[in-house]
């Protein structure tokens, strides 16, 4: 194991800001993209349902 304590782990040998800035932004971007893709599918399904309700009536 490379790290003796949590502080040391977060410090990353002085590069903490760069390393965690990279990993944090990556995680945030991926979560945001995944959620927005799921939202788009839900909305598309809801829109299709709305378009079809009331069909068959004049």
């Amino acid at each position, binding site marked *: 194991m*490379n790290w003796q304590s949590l502080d040391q782990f977060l410090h990353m040998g002085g590069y903490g800001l*760069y390393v965690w800035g*990279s990993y944090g932004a990556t995680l945030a971007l991926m979560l945001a993209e995944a959620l927005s*893709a799921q939202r788009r599918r839900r909305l598309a399904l809801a*829109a299709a349902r709305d378009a079809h309700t009331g069909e068959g009536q004049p």
Partner: protein
Amino acid sequence: MATRLTTFAAPSRFYAAAGAAVPWCWAITALFGLAGLWVGFGIAPTDFQQGDAYRIIFIHVPAAWMSMLIYLVMAFWAALGWMLNTRMSAMYARALAPTGALMTVIALWTGALWGKPTWGTWWVWDARLTSEFILLLMYGGYIALTEAIDDPRRAANAGALLALVGAVNVPVIYFSVRWWNTLHQGSSISMTAAPKMASTMLTAMLLMTVCFWAYSFAVVFTRARAIVLEQESDTDWVRALTRTPTSEGRP
């Protein structure tokens, strides 16, 4: 009736199959992501030159690889849709573009955060960085163009032309470190020589690559399903889908 069924078979079959595949893609993403982070931070040693800053490689290289690979796959589907006029091809291409753009942004962002402590600068206009930036512009142009044209077929054809022209840029990115003098280091992995890095570092990078790969499949499948629903909303199978009160049909 028979002709109609075959016409609509592909998108409806894709919708169901992709829906079944997405949870598995997420499981692989989580599994390989955790394994990659464990090896990358717990086992791989500190680099004797770069200290711990090098650990950015475990996401930087997979993101850069995916940014190029997704572009080529996108251009392939766009071209296929253009030549054969198949319904699903253009939808795949459009579903891929935002994820490719995101991978490009991640590659550029992590590259800047890696460049600052090791090169002393966030950004230089050298061959590798500039061509990767052009890739981002290509994705942006493709998305803007296909979104701006209302008719799906015309949007797909215009997008295909742009995607194909832009594909020239991908080998330029890949070989830029060999063709020009650049601050960027050479390839970490080459087809013809042994990897120039410690095996635990390589293991972590490959685990993260599988993670990013599975992530891309999960998100692209989800987005492709949304696009299918948007473009096929008038078809019988979508109509049937919205009437089924299953968990699949619920918003």
